[in-house]
């Protein structure tokens, strides 16, 4: 597609339920990032995937959060047993990489963001 696509755009769920958020990056972008945007907290790094390398999960706030990227393209962020403090906009971004995608190449630094998935936990 023309840009990063995220779904759903809005999700309202009850506390304790699991949710899945999907990100479809720009074709050819081998780096993919998830961020959480909440009022007063700015843009919080969650996880990033780069080619075939192991993902950097250092920003995931708890073990209720997980993400996977299948086939080097689409990514799913899963939040289990949602809590009210999980309410936020979840942003996905993708970027190109210099060098072989299977190795530790560098990204260009320009992230292309999706419109986000707004999660509300009641």
């Amino acid at each position, binding site marked *: 597609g023309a840009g990063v696509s995220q779904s759903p755009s809005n999700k309202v769920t009850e506390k304790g339920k699991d949710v899945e958020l999907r990100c479809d990056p720009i074709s050819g972008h081998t780096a993919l990032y998830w*961020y959480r945007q909440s009022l007063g*907290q*700015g*843009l919080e790094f969650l996880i990033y995937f780069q080619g075939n390398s192991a993902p*950097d999960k250092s920003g995931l706030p708890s073990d209720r959060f997980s993400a996977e990227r299948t086939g080097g393209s689409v990514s799913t962020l899963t939040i289990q047993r949602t809590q009210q403090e999980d309410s936020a906009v979840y942003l996905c971004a993708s970027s190109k990489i210099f060098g072989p995608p299977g190795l530790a190449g560098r990204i260009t*630094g320009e992230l292309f963001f999706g419109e986000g998935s707004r999660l509300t936990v009641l």
Partner: protein
Amino acid sequence: AQRVTQPEKLLSVFKGAPVELKCNYSYSGSPELFWYVQYSRQRLQLLLRHISRESIKGFTADLNKGETSFHLKKPFAQEEDSAMYYCALMYSSASKIIFGSGTRLSIRP
């Protein structure tokens, strides 16, 4: 620990006045710094990066390694500059990018 600090949550200036959005970083390596902008009802997008040393929409930013700062400046603010601005740091050792908490810039007519 690596960190990006934007001390102002909100900055309000009159049209035509100079603007400076502050950004300080903490990083032991050689950083690459960026400013991203989010206009109302639009996606977050790259505004400028320090290695390009360019002016975008009249905005410039200079990396000051001594003060570990990367402030965004514009000599004459326009109403269309009203937006949320985020400073970002890319690690030299990897492709991880972290952002500051953002500054909302409001330009008064």
